[in-house]
């Protein structure tokens, strides 16, 4: 029984990976480049930063970075709770 389930799961995963390999997008030919071109052309003028990655992370997507910082804060709070000292 276990062997049959294992074979079935293997076949399903194999079919998924095989199809994705067959239908792989041709390398070096991105389909939609409007947003990349906008960032590369206007990032330096709009934010004044040489580093386009920083201008995206902290300016265009600052809200996402706020979430990341909050995730780190929550992780620290979780560690503080897990390693707290119980009153005897």
């Amino acid at each position, binding site marked *: 029984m276990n062997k049959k389930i294992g074979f079935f799961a293997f076949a399903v995963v194999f079919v998924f990976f095989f199809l994705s390999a067959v239908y792989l997008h041709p390398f070096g030919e991105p389909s939609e480049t409007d947003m990349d071109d906008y960032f590369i052309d206007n990032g*330096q*003028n*709009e*934010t*004044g*930063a*040489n*580093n386009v*990655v*920083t*201008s995206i*992370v*902290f*300016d265009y997507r*600052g*809200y996402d*970075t*706020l979430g*990341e*910082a*909050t995730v*780190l*804060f929550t*992780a*620290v709070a979780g*560690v*503080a709770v897990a*390693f707290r*000292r119980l009153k005897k």
Partner: protein
Amino acid sequence: MRGMSKIVRTITNILYSFIIIFGFYIIMHGHLTPGGGFQGGAVVASAFALLVVSYGALKIKDMLKAKNFSVSECSGLLAFIGLGFLGIGTVFFYNFLAGKGGLFGNVIYGINPGDLNTAGVLPLMNIAVGIEVLSGLTLIILYMFNANNPKEEK
């Protein structure tokens, strides 16, 4: 938790200040070179981790206090959120200092050698996030090291 041998402690004495300086360099130049607040904060936190590992949590207790790092972590996150709210006259997280000629307001164009005084609020946000990340990662290390410490950590 005991510290490590004298060789490790000597190398740590030589190296940790340079690691901290390198981390703050990455934080300060986040808008010019690869890196930023998260990466530089992790580098500085690795220097503190080196100190804790080589000297042991008992000896380093007076130098690295968990309470101070907790305060600086919270203030870093609050500074980041506050910088986001300062631009709310236009939109949340608006870059209101860029290109105005004041603080971090120099205008650059095209290929340039890199001016530190540019990019508006991005360097300030990098500093805020860097302080938060370095204190947060150091706090995790300190909490885990103090967990099997028999004496009360205040």
